[in-house]
């Protein structure tokens, strides 16, 4: 099943913080986060693994609650370059090697 992302959209001023959530109804092995700018391809941000290990980006952090099958992406001190649509991709039992992506969260950062 497709993971549920919230919020669907958020507007920030430069320097503000944002949290994007991703929730699944099935047990997860990993959660991946990607960012897509308008008219471009999705670009990898980070992977969160079962067991708590985190791999990825310097200025963006995330958490993974295995018991609740939830992940949150934290963007602090947002910059104009953070604007785009953020997707979580989840990997669960029976779909190893594949990701099921959420519908995305559109983030707009204004000056």
């Amino acid at each position, binding site marked *: 099943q*497709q993971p549920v992302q919230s919020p669907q959209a958020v507007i920030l001023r430069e320097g503000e913080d944002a949290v994007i959530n991703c929730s699944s109804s099935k047990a997860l*092995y*990993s959660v*991946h986060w990607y960012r897509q700018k308008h008219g*471009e*391809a*999705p*670009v*990898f941000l980070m*992977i969160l*693994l*079962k067991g708590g290990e985190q791999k990825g980006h310097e200025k963006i952090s995330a958490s993974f609650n295995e018991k609740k099958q939830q992940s949150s992406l934290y963007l602090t001190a947002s910059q104009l370059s953070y604007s785009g649509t953020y*997707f979580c*991709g989840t*990997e669960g039992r029976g779909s*190893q*090697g*594949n*990701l*099921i*992506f*959420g*519908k*995305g969260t559109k983030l707009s950062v204004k000056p």
Partner: protein
Amino acid sequence: NAGVTQTPKFRVLKTGQSMTLLCAQDMNHEYMYWYRQDPGMGLRLIHYSVGEGTTAKGEVPDGYNVSRLKKQNFLLGLESAAPSQTSVYFCASSLGYLAGFTDTQYFGPGTRLTVL
């Protein structure tokens, strides 16, 4: 390295016509994927391949076929295009399922397909 490339970038088809989209990667990746992206729907997996000569169905495989004759190439075919297949198609590749998790997927620039 070019990474992941897709051909063509744009295409307009009439209902019933056929076409093939080509994806190529130069990273020696085992896994390759085809997604479609529609407004408000996110990325939905059409078909994928875990190695040369293998293919498998994803979430939305109906109306599409794929082939992976060479490790670096993954072809997506539409035998009889329908307006519902109007979408942006992305190809991706990755090292695959390693050490208990799926590795990073690298995406191509996309193909915008319109079916009239």
